[in-house]
C-alpha cells in the first residue's frame, strides 16, 4: 500500500473511528466500570479509589438476582417486544407484499407514505395516541358503546398495557415494513410462475416460495423492531399505567429518579448483553436464509 493510500485510508476511516471511540467505546467502558462502583451518598457515584485501594463491588449484580421483581420487568419487556414484533410482522407483511407486487409506478410513492410519519417528532405522534385512546375520544366511546350494547362493562384504553402495545406497534411498523419490502421487491416473479406451473396452489406458492425466500427480510425487520422496543421508555411512560413499566423505565429511574447510578449501569449492561445475544441469534438465522437466496 502506498503512502498516499494509507493517508486516504486514515482520512476516510479516521473520523468515524474517533467518533465511535469517544462517543461509544468510552461511555460503554464508563458504564461497565460504574456498575461495579458504590453509589454516592447523595446519588451519583462514590469515589473510585478510597485510601489508595479500588473501591469496587459486585453488590448491584447480587441485588438484581436477589429480587425477582427486576427479572420480572425483564420478562415483561421481552413479552412486550415479542408481541410488538409479531403484530408488526403480521401487519407489515401483507402491505409490503402488496407494494412489492403492485404497479411499479406507485411503489416509490407508497414507500414514501410509509416513511412519512418519521417527518414528525415521535413524542408528538405518541401524544396523539393519548388523545385517540383517551376516554373522551370518538374511538373510546365507540368501543365502549359496542361493549355496553353487548352487556360488558366499559374499558379504559389509555394508561394500559394495551395502549403501550398500540404505541409500540405504531412507532415501529415502518422498521418492519421497509426491510420486508426491500426483500420482497427483489423476488423473481418467474419463481411463482414456475411454482404454479408445477402444481402449487396460491397458498402453497406463498408458503413454499415467497415466505422462505423472505426470511432474511423477516429476520432483519424483527431485529429492528424487537431490540428498540426492549429498551423503549418514552412510550410506556406516556401511554402506560403505573404497572406498565419496562426495563427502559427502570433504567431511567435509576439515573434520574432514585439516583442509584451503579444499579442503573448494571441494568443497562444486562439489557445490552441480552440484546446482543438476540442480535447475534437474528444475524445467524438471517445468514442461514441468505446462504440459499
Amino acid at each position, binding site marked *: 500500500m502506498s503512502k498516499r493510500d494509507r493517508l486516504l485510508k486514515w482520512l476516510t476511516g479516521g473520523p468515524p473511528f474517533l467518533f465511535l471511540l469517544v462517543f461509544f467505546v468510552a461511555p460503554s467502558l464508563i458504564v461497565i466500570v460504574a456498575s461495579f462502583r458504590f453509589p454516592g451518598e447523595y446519588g451519583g457515584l462514590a469515589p473510585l479509589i478510597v485510601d489508595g485501594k479500588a473501591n469496587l463491588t459486585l453488590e448491584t449484580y447480587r441485588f438484581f438476582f436477589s429480587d425477582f421483581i427486576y427479572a420480572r420487568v425483564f420478562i415483561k419487556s421481552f413479552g412486550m417486544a415479542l408481541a410488538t414484533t409479531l403484530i408488526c410482522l403480521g401487519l407489515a407483511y401483507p402491505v409490503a407484499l402488496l407494494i412489492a407486487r403492485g404497479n411499479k409506478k406507485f411503489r416509490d410513492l407508497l414507500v414514501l407514505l410509509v416513511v412519512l410519519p418519521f417527518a414528525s417528532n415521535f413524542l408528538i405522534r405518541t401524544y396523539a395516541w393519548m388523545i385517540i385512546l383517551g376516554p373522551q375520544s370518538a374511538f373510546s366511546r365507540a368501543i365502549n358503546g359496542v361493549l355496553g350494547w353487548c352487556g360488558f362493562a366499559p374499558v379504559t384504553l389509555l394508561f394500559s398495557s394495551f395502549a403501550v402495545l398500540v404505541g409500540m406497534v405504531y412507532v415501529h411498523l415502518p422498521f418492519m415494513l421497509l426491510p420486508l419490502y426491500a426483500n420482497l421487491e427483489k423476488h423473481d416473479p418467474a419463481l411463482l410462475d414456475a*411454482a404454479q406451473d408445477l402444481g402449487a396452489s396460491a397458498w402453497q406458492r406463498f408458503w*413454499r416460495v415467497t415466505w422462505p425466500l423472505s426470511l432474511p427480510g423477516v429476520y432483519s425487520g424483527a431485529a429492528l423492531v424487537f431490540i428498540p422496543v426492549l429498551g423503549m421508555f418514552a412510550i410506556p411512560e406516556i401511554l402506560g399505567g403505573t404497572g406498565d413499566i419496562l426495563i427502559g423505565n427502570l433504567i431511567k429511574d435509576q439515573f434520574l429518579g432514585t439516583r442509584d447510578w451503579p444499579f442503573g449501569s448494571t441494568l443497562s449492561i444486562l439489557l445490552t448483553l441480552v440484546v446482543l445475544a438476540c442480535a447475534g441469534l437474528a444475524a445467524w438465522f438471517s445468514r442461514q436464509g441468505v446462504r440459499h437466496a
Partner: protein
Amino acid sequence: MALLEIRNVIRRYGALAAVEDVSFSVEAGEFFTLLGPSGCGKTTLLRMIAGFESPDAGQILLDGIDLADIPAEKRPVHTVFQSYALFPHMTVAENIAFPLKMAGTDAQTIKIRVKQSLAEVRLEDKADHYPHEISGGQKQRVALARGLINRPRLLLLDEALGALDAKLREKMQIELINLQKNVGISFIFVTHAQDEALALSHRIAVMREGRIEQLDEPSKLYGFPRNRFVADFIGNINLFEVEVKEAAASYLRLAAAGIGEFTAPPRSGAKAGEQGWFAIRPEQVRIARHHDIELKNRFSGKVRDFLYIGDVTTYKVELENGTLIEALMANFEPGRTMFFQVGDAVTLAWRHDAGRFLNE
C-alpha cells in the same frame, strides 16, 4: 385425436395483436417447435397453453378437453423457463421433488422417483447442492427433470437453451432429443434460433406478427419455404426478382432483368407473366473459374467478397446485372483455404431443379 389442439386462438394487448387466429395441433410424442423473431407471439402462445394467460377468442384443447376453465396449477402441462426458475432456497433434489410434493405424493415414492430422475439427467452427485452451486448446463438439466418428474402430458420449453454458450448448447440439444425420445412426452419448444429448431424438431411452426407463416417438417421448411419471410428466416438464401416466362407442368422458365432466362422447378399456381422472386440456397450454387460446368443455368460474375469460416467459405459474387449471389464452397482440399480471390471472374451455376419461385 391430437394431443393438443389450438383452434383459432386470438390474444390481443390493446390494439396490438400478439396472437392472431392461430390453429395447429400437436401429436403425442412429438417434438414441436414454435419459431420466430422476438415479438412474433410464440411466447404468448406458450403462456396460454401453460395457463398463465387466456385467449381472447378460440380454444385450446388437451386430449379433447377445453383448458379454458382449468387453472395453470391443475393443467398436466409443465414449463421449462428460459431463466430455469429453479427455487434458490431448495436443493437440486428438493427442486425436482416439488411437483410430486404439490401433487401430494407420499414421501417414500418421492424419494424413489427423485432418485430415478436424478439418474436420468446424470446429476446423482448434485442432489444436495443448491442451484447457485451448479453450472448453467446442470441447472438446465434440473429444470428439465423437475418439469418431467410427474410425467405431464406436455412439456413447454421457453427459449430453454438460450442462456447456454454455443458448445454447451449443441450438447444439450442432443441430450434434449434423447430425453424426449426416452420419456415419450410431447415437447413444445419456443425459440428464435432457426438452427436449433431445425436440429431438434419433428415439426416447426414459423411465426410472424402473431400468425403462422408455415408449418412443416424441418427439411420441407428449409427446402420448400412458402414465402420470402420463411425462406429468409430459415438458414441463408439468395433472393432476387424474376418474372415467369413459361409455366409448364414439369418446369418454370424464369427471367431476371439483365442476366436472361433460366429453368426452375415447377410451382403450382404460377402463371406466365407473374412477377415474383427466385430463392436459392448458397450451397446449391456452384462456383467455378472456367466455363467447365455442364449446367444450363449458368451466369458469369465477379467475386466481390468472401467469408472464410473454417469448414466452408462463402463467396459473394456480383452478376452482370448487379445482383449479389452467395455461393458456398466446402474447403475440401487440405491446406487450401481459398479457391478464388476478390475480383476473379467466375461462373455461377445451379441445377434446373434447384431453388424455388416465390410469389409472396
